[in-house]
């Protein structure tokens, strides 16, 4: 019998209640903790539900209803138990256990209801789908089947029940599209899609649900569900597969398997469909992709919230006013972010009034847009507008505790600004730089108080990308660093501590890949060949599209910085220089610009796509090893976190080092793995 030795058991508590003149068996899922530790199903939890269903049936109620603890219905399988599954047989057993227990609700002669009072994800939604009817509270935070995002499939009946309940287009949205775009369903959407039959307000959700269920049982209410259209089944799935392949190039096994299961759901019996689910789930659980995904999920959920190597937060100083040097696009984005999250005065400066006005206006326009999209209420908007101001006179920084510069990437200019500022601000005021490649240590070198200088490297667009690289200069002190991390947390960013090293983490690694790509181009490999070289990894962007996003000039600039630092590994590319000089867009209408393709020239040793990829991966492994040896970050986990949050590297690669390990690249190139076997891969 499978066990999860550290399972926080979600118990199923049965209570008999009177509702609408009926005896009702009400089952509550509750793990005994508040909503911050949601209900989930491990082996013991499933057995508890099994017993509860037995007790409920024995009481011969008019109906059986399943609900959750406050705010949480159930968020699915307890994935912390997966590392304990060391054989395929165990994985099969877990699948079968869930199927057997949940099926009792589906096969029950007594009507069964799920009252989805709170978040219902994965196996939590699947158990609800087994019930004959569902109500959902307008206060439920999220509904969804996010398994594909963590390398699995809905394996407790969801892939078979959902398409036959709401049709295959909706099921494909819930099972594939939403997980891959990090989306979930809101309660209203869930009802519109047909996932739940009835929406009730949270204030009296359970009372109304019980009353509604009694009316259904009495035949006073008939639940109407549209008939599922089976004719379009294959067509929808064909289209979904096309879309997936276009994006992921077949690199995500869980997505492909979910498609197979959806196809099967059309005609297969429930028994056959769920048996297939069990086998596929077991295969995925016993595959490196799911293990890497779970590792990545854990990084994002946990490590991102508790950065490693950070001084105690009690050292952090209060930030009551923020200064921003510069009023350009980046500076204005920062102003909005700081004002929104810190809710303190934010003041922008620039060299002339016109620039300042433009920067402040940008912030105001963005606030209006947020109000328009109902992301901000008018009261908060008024407050934010009042918080953001601008000036041409840097003396406005005198009482700021935190000043960040976002001016042109030029060391002398930045040094000059800091020197000027030091005469204005208090000696303890933090001076932060948003540089993406310059040395924080060098920038602080001539200051009277270099210990208060720190790097604060955001990713564009600032409001969207969750990563913040916080760079410790040689002389940065603990209070400064603690304050920087406290601010990062308030900004709702995931901060990673990075040593002052050229281009830090994400830009250094992306530039290394770009450098390899251009090496191949310089050697004569056509653009369209290099462009598809990385496809089998399922990265979010192809290399040329990424170059377009970053901008060839910026890429070239960062490349230059890294070339100066590490000339052996970061080559200068004549072709990249040509592209920058020509000033042409590298992509036009989502295609490589033919003019650019015609521009690149030279080289007599073209590589195949596979060779390009192999070189790029080897280079990545080499660079990461060097970075870890140099102590740029504390551990490989930080590299992966940075690549996931800053570059959108996918979960199934575990960021990147799990993939380099499992493909044998790291051992071949550097002589050892980045992570021990079992951390982001199957146990040895």
């Amino acid at each position: 019998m499978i066990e999860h030795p550290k399972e926080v058991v979600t118990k199923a508590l049965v209570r008999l209640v009177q509702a609408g003149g009926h005896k009702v068996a009400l089952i509550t899922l509750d793990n005994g903790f508040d909503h911050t530790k949601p209900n989930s199903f491990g082996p013991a939890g499933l057995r508890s539900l099994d017993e509860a269903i037995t007790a409920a049936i024995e009481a011969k109620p008019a109906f059986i209803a399943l609900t959750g603890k406050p705010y949480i219905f159930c968020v699915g399988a307890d994935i912390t138990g997966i590392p304990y599954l060391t054989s395929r047989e165990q994985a099969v057993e877990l699948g079968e256990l869930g199927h057997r227990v949940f099926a009792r609700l589906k096969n029950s002669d007594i009507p069964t209801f799920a009252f989805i009072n709170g978040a219902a994800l994965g196996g939590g939604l699947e158990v609800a789908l087994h019930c004959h009817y569902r109500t959902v509270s307008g206060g439920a935070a999220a509904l969804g089947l996010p398994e594909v995002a963590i390398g699995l499939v809905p394996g407790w009946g969801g892939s078979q029940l959902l398409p036959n309940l709401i049709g295959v287009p909706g099921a494909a949205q819930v099972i594939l599209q939403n997980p891959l775009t990090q989306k979930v369903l809101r309660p209203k959407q869930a009802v519109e899609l047909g996932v739940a039959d009835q929406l009730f307000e949270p204030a009296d959700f359970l009372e109304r649900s019980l009353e509604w269920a009694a009316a259904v049982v009495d035949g006073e209410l008939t639940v109407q569900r549209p008939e599922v259209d089976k004719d379009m089944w294959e067509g929808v799935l064909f289209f979904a597969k096309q879309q997936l392949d276009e994006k992921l190039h077949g690199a995500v096994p869980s997505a492909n398997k979910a498609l197979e299961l959806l196809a099967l759901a059309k005609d297969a019996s429930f028994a056959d469909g769920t048996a297939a689910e069990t086998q596929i789930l077991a295969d995925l659980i016993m595959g490196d992709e799911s293990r890497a995904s779970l590792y990545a999920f854990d990084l994002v959920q946990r490590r991102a919230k508790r950065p490693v190597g950070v001084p105690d937060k009690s050292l952090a100083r209060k930030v009551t006013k923020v200064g921003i040097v510069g009023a350009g696009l980046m500076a204005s984005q920062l102003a909005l972010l700081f004002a929104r999250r810190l809710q303190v005065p934010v003041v922008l400066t620039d060299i002339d009034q016109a620039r300042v006005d433009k920067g402040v206006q940008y912030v105001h326009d963005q606030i209006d847009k947020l109000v328009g999209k109902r992301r901000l209420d008018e009261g908060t908007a008024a407050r934010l507008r009042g918080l953001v101001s601008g000036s041409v006179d840097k003396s406005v920084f005198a009482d700021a505790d935190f000043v960040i510069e976002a001016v042109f990437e030029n060391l002398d200019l930045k040094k000059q600004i800091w020197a000027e500022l030091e005469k204005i601000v208090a000696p303890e005021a933090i001076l932060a730089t948003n540089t993406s490649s310059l040395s924080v240590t060098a920038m602080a070198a001539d200051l009277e108080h270099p210990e208060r200088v720190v790097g604060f490297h955001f990713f564009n667009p600032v409001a969207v990308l969750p990563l913040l690289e916080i760079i410790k200069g040689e002389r940065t002190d603990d209070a400064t660093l603690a304050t920087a991390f406290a601010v990062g947390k308030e900004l709702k960013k995931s901060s990673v501590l990075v040593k002052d090293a050229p281009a830090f983490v994400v830009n250094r690694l992306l530039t290394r890949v770009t450098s390899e790509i251009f090496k191949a181009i310089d050697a004569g490999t056509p653009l369209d060949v290099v462009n598809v070289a990385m496809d089998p990894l399922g990265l979010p962007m192809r290399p040329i599209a990424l170059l377009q996003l970053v901008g060839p000039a910026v890429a070239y600039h960062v490349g230059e910085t890294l070339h100066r630092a590490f000339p052996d590994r970061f080559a200068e590319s004549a072709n990249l220089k040509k592209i920058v000089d020509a000033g042409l867009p590298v992509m036009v209408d989502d295609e490589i610009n033919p003019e650019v393709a015609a521009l690149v020239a030279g080289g007599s040793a073209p590589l195949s796509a596979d060779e390009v990829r192999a070189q790029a991966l080897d280079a990545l492994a080499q660079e990461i090893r060097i970075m870890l040896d140099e102590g740029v970050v504390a551990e490989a986990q930080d590299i992966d976190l940075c690549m996931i949050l800053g570059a959108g590297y996918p979960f199934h690669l575990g960021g990147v080092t799990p993939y380099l390990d499992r493909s044998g690249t790291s051992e071949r190139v550097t002589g050892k793995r980045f992570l021990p076997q079992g951390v982001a891969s199957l146990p040895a």
Partner: protein
Amino acid sequence: MTREVREVVFVDGVRTPFGKAGGMYAETRADDLVIRCIRELMRRNPQLPPDRVDEVAIAATTQIGDQGLTIGRTAALLSGLPKTVPGYAIDRMCAGAMTAVTNVAGGIAMGAYDVAIAGGVEHMGRHPMGEGVDPNPRILAEKLVDPSALVMGSTAENLHDRLPGISKERADRYGLNSQLKTAKAYADGKLQPDLVPVALRSAEQGWGLATADEAPRETSMEKLATLKTPFRPHGRVTAGNAAGLNDGATAALLAGEDTARELGLPIAMRMVSYGFVGVEPEVMGFGPIPSTEKALKKAGLTIEDIGLFELNEAFAVQVLAFLDHYGIADDDPRVNPWGGAIAIGHPLASSGVRLMTQLARHFAEHPEVRYGLTAMCVGIGMGGTVIWENPNWDGAAK
């Protein structure tokens, strides 16, 4: 400006099942109880546009924690009423909800409101009587009142002292009768229509649903005779002839009669008059007698005009004092036909509206009755009485 005083009507009232302190509502918030009542009132009267509610007056004796924060306003917001609907908190101990009703009725009569919600809540499990009180030391130093005046059970013992005709045995019999009447009312399905089911959370047992009062119990004169007299050795007041410690909430909808007709709201009772009067705090149970005198006088009625009584049974002795005063028999069928607080429970500030809701039901069943009254004794020596007219009165009999 000139204005006419408007007729004030009781449209509808509901309550939660009453729990025993430490019982079924142990893990349920007080404000959630009153919110359930407000939502149910609105749901039972869909013809009332929510933005037509002009006031939400909610009573609680202990206005802290989940009974604090201006509970009338917060409960209105949490009930989903529009933000434009104001609310306030109100306190007159046991007569809290009754005072909420008379307050908003005054506002309706003078034209400040058209429609108002009045109710009360007391979660005596979470907020035991006397929680956080700080009596002025002058009360003792200047012998303003006897210290026993602050302990309600002791005031009931004092009342027994002054009324030797009311024996423990008679009080017990009254208590037993209350239980029997309530049991019969439940069996006949009389009380259930007023109840709002409440979802109950228990960390140990999971969710449940409260659908009936928790306090009513089977008992007998023999059993009652064995109960302790916690307020005095060899005293007379026991858990069997007094209301218990309870959790519960009530709410009622009141309106100007013209507005009720405009909106098509039912008219269950028409307010005739009310009176609040102070008495010696040591024998607060006397309170309903002078308050009834006052209300009758204001209405130009006599006790003979009253065909139905809903008297709060804080203590049997206090009801018996009232009945003796007016020469009404202990088991007069006009009095508390479905039992009272001794059986059902008395979550202090909420009880006033329960009396009214039940009187409204009696009115519907008794078109031969023209007037009824609701009365209750109040801590620190007060009584409150509201006299109501039955709109169903057929004029055939008085």
